[in-house]
């Protein structure tokens, strides 16, 4: 059975995702030792320096976040895009400083996702109980096998994407821009008969957008928020501050 990591990378006028991808891939090589396939567009492809499998697609550029371009509309195609039997799809700003993903790949679960995340500054709970009528999942990292059931999950995400306004109304989702986290939450909820589903049991350590990234090294990051300097080592980190491309 083949295993590998699938990344989506599309540079925007504001953010050099190709630079972030290069760093992400170097950590995958170092800590997971898995093959990597990058789905990208023609413009971005030339800027990715890592030696990896790249596939060019026509990207759907319809979405925005905080009024800036946000190219996040391709993830529902991961089932078709992945050349692997067992795939890890992750955001390029999720940096693997540990072997956690490798451990999770040994499980028999055909679809795994995180249901919880925490702010490393512990300022606020990253919970969205009041933002929708169903629990959010974090599509930051997805682990899936190619099975009829996971095909059904991705097909449902596709359906949710096509009718997102309807599903927002149905589940009373307050955030109206398309968000993969909600699309996968809805798909998992529906395919699992509106019952619980298997999840990754820990929480994603999230570096918030307003934390300054002072240093990135092979083992982790040093960040600063106001007068606080925090060192985070040997644990996977999800960076919301896209300045991570320039550190």
């Amino acid at each position: 059975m083949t295993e590998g990591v699938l990344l989506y990378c599309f540079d925007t006028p504001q953010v050099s995702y190709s630079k972030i991808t290069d760093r992400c891939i170097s950590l995958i090589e170092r800590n997971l030792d898995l093959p990597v396939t990058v789905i990208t567009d023609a413009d971005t492809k030339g800027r990715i320096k890592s030696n990896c499998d790249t596939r060019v697609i026509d990207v759907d550029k319809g979405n925005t976040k905080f009024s800036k371009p946000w190219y996040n509309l391709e993830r529902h195609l991961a089932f078709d895009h992945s050349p692997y039997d067992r795939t890890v799809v992750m955001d390029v700003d999720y940096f693997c400083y540990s072997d956690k993903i490798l451990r999770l790949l040994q499980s028999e679960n055909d679809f795994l996702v995180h249901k919880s995340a925490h702010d490393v500054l512990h300022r606020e709970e990253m919970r969205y109980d009041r933002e929708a009528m169903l629990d959010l999942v974090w599509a930051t990292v997805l682990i899936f096998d190619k099975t009829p059931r996971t095909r059904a999950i991705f097909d449902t995400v596709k359906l949710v994407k096509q009718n997102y306004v309807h599903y927002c109304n149905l589940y009373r989702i307050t955030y109206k821009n398309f968000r993969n986290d909600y699309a996968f939450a809805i798909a998992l909820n529906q395919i699992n008969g509106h019952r619980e589903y298997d999840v990754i049991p820990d929480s994603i350590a999230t570096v918030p957008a307003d934390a300054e990234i002072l240093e990135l090294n092979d083992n982790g990051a040093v960040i600063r928020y106001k007068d606080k300097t925090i060192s985070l080592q040997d644990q996977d980190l999800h960076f919301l501050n896209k300045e991570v491309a320039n550190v």
Partner: protein
Amino acid sequence: MNIDQLKKISRQSFDINLQKANALKKAESDQILVYENHIFRADAETICFVRTASEGKDSFFMLDSNSNPVCITEPTDFLELLLQRNQSALNTYHQLYQNTKNRKV
């Protein structure tokens, strides 16, 4: 003590608790163990259950972290792996905690 000193102590306590909270979250991630294709947390509760359930038995049943049932047929091996993973995670947590404490004034 004046108000500035009190504020300084408060800020230091906040920083120490923040470092501790992050180290604990890291320890929880480090405790994830996959055995016989099932996901477990190598925490005190799991270890105590495995030790108790395996006493005088060659196999026993338990639940993984998603409440799926598993038949454990090699309890000694499983317990050993749980302890290794647990102690490795807590050893790191202990080191981070000591570093944080040592920075305390």
